[in-house]
């Protein structure tokens, strides 16, 4: 079970959305990071067979991306702005999408309650979709995406707009699903990736600027993250010189976290890098975001 992407490019009216992307994704959770407009959704939609590539090759579990009919059996997709006909109940929506996935009637009757239980929506099966909260809708989204038991699950920005409790619940659900599937999670929320993914890729301006494990990403910033206590007057000068990845008020002073190749000041202390530091280092700081 593997996804192979070789020299993938995608252009929209002459403008490159993806440039020569090479990537291999194995079973488990794979996180795709990148700022808004980096090309994450384009890559997701190409993998979900919803968009054709301009050039390059992709195979999913050994099947070429052009064989859409075969691939759609293998892929479950939760789009960024998931929605269902609002007048359907939760169960009716699942049933309808199950029919579209060609899940036999007897299997739907068995699987739908199980999935709704898994995403904690069984008690709401008769509730109209229009009455669901944002978090409930996303959970319904994940349930519909795995309704036909796909080998590959593509989840685009699933936690955006969710409260912390819902976000944690959602992450746990995805981790559970990744035990026997390839789950591709696209997000610009670094915390989601750190908590769930072993392997990650970072897209920037359509190019894949990093691929590897979370540890490998962290190691990119090894020895380059410093903590400094500064007074507010100095802050502006430091901002212009270094990439700042964190800031905490300490009485009259501010404790800042900076990325620098050299010791930024005498009172600076070297810190253990986290994934956010490395990500900021990779994409060139907050000004570029």
């Amino acid at each position, binding site marked *: 079970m593997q996804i192979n992407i070789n020299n993938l490019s995608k252009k929209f009216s002459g403008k490159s959305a993806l440039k020569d992307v090479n990537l291999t994704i194995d079973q488990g959770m794979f996180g795709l990071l990148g700022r808004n407009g980096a090309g994450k959704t384009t890559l997701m*939609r190409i993998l*979900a*067979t*919803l*968009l*054709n590539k301009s050039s390059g090759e992709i195979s999913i579990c050994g099947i070429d991306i052009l064989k*859409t*009919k075969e691939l*759609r*059996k293998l*892929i479950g*997709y939760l*789009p960024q*702005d*998931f*929605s*269902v*006909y*609002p*007048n*359907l109940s939760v169960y009716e929506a699942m*049933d*309808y*999408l199950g*029919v*579209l*996935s*060609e899940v036999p*009637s007897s299997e739907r009757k068995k699987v739908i309650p199980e999935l709704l239980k898994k995403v904690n929506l069984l008690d709401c099966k008769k509730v109209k979709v229009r009455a669901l909260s944002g978090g409930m809708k996303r959970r319904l989204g994940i349930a*519909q995406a795995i309704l*036909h038991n796909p080998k590959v699950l593509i989840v685009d920005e699933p936690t955006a707009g969710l409260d912390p409790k819902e976000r944690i619940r959602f992450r746990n659900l995805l981790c559970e699903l990744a035990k026997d599937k390839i789950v591709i999670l696209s997000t610009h929320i670094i915390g989601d990736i750190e908590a769930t993914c072993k392997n990650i890729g970072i897209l920037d301006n359509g190019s894949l600027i990093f691929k590897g494990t979370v540890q490998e990403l962290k190691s990119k910033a090894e020895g380059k993250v410093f903590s400094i206590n500064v007074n507010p007057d100095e802050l502006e000068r430091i901002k212009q010189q270094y990439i700042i990845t964190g800031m905490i008020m300490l009485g009259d002073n501010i404790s800042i976290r900076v990325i620098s190749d050299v010791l930024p000041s005498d009172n600076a202390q070297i810190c253990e890098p986290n994934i956010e530091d490395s990500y900021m280092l990779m994409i060139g700081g907050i000004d570029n975001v």
Partner: protein
Amino acid sequence: MFNLFLKECTQLGKSLIYIVFICITIAFYTTQYFSDIKGNDPRNSGSPLIKPSYVQDVEKYNKENDMYPCGSTNEEIPEQIISKSTLMMYEEHMKGTYSAYPHGLFKNVKLDKENTKKIEEILCKITGKSLIELEKLHKNVNWNEIHFSSSSKDYSSFKKLMEKANNIIGEQSNYSKENLRRFGVRPITYEEAMKTYKDLIEKDKITNGFARLFCDYMGIVMGLFPVFVVFSFIRKDRKSNMKQVIYSRRVSSAKLILSRYSALIIMMMVPIFLLAGVSTFQVVSISEKLNLTVDYFAFFKYSIGWLMPTLMAVTAVGMFLTLLTETAIAIPVQMIWWYSSISKGVLIGNYDLSQLMIRFNTIYDRDEFVSIIYNIFLNRMFFILISAIFVVTSIYILNLKRIGRIDFYDKYSKYFTNFKGKFKNSLSK
């Protein structure tokens, strides 16, 4: 596929637009067809279900009852046409307005001085009298006793003058070639009435005649209103933001389009079948009292053969345009198509391939119907073929859309938005 078809039917059945469609269909049935056939109740004199009775002296009967025993019909009788049409022209001239029916719609025409003068000249030429003379005669003398000029006695030169008048007043005035015939009236003979009666009762078994009238009226509904249901139903994926969820699923484009198309057709035929059932029941209840036999399936047969091709074509074209553009363009397109078909104003006798709706506004004229049935068949086959072409094209379009090869709406929506913005700005100014 049947499972998906049922799901689409259920969704369509629950939609507001479908309920509105049913209400419009029932309202049209009640106000048009039902009010038209009320006069056929056998308790009314002149009901087509009552055997005509023989009257020896038709003219005497006419004088006593102000009607002919078997009714009347239009015929090209030059004496009547010259006299009655000239009277109408004179009266319209005096009133200052002329009636015309361009594209089947009534229009009150007012002429300028120059054209009014031309009409005066035509009136004088036909009657051989001046306008002052005509005014006196109109007040005092029975118009029929006016001696028309020698030129008008020649019927062909009269028709030329009337054609000239028609050109001045405008399309489809009372003096057009087709409308002039209506001024000639003669009584229907007993033999003719008996033939019509026998055709309706024995050959048409009553319901076949009534079914043609039913389809004539319901065809008007089927030629326009389904497009609103189709637009709303096909655009629901974009409206509910469900396109990607549906497009990424295993179901084939052919299966999806065919399920939705057949759901639209069947569901929109449901009110037609229900009204066909009601109409059959009405005719059966009357015919039972008169001990007449009826064809119980006539309304259903005609609905399928006559109305369904119209519905199929409207649905297929509407579905294609909505799928391609994801805009409401199908609605104005259908309105133009419907209007161009109905505005010809011909109630019986136009069955060329451009006629979306088949008109046959009578329960009689079986012979006429039989003589043109092949043309009707060709017309209906043509629209079934059109439907098939648009359904296949829709499948192809959906296939391309599912892999992101075309997205007309995303590509051109900014132009619509710009246009809307400009329009709103111009309104606010």
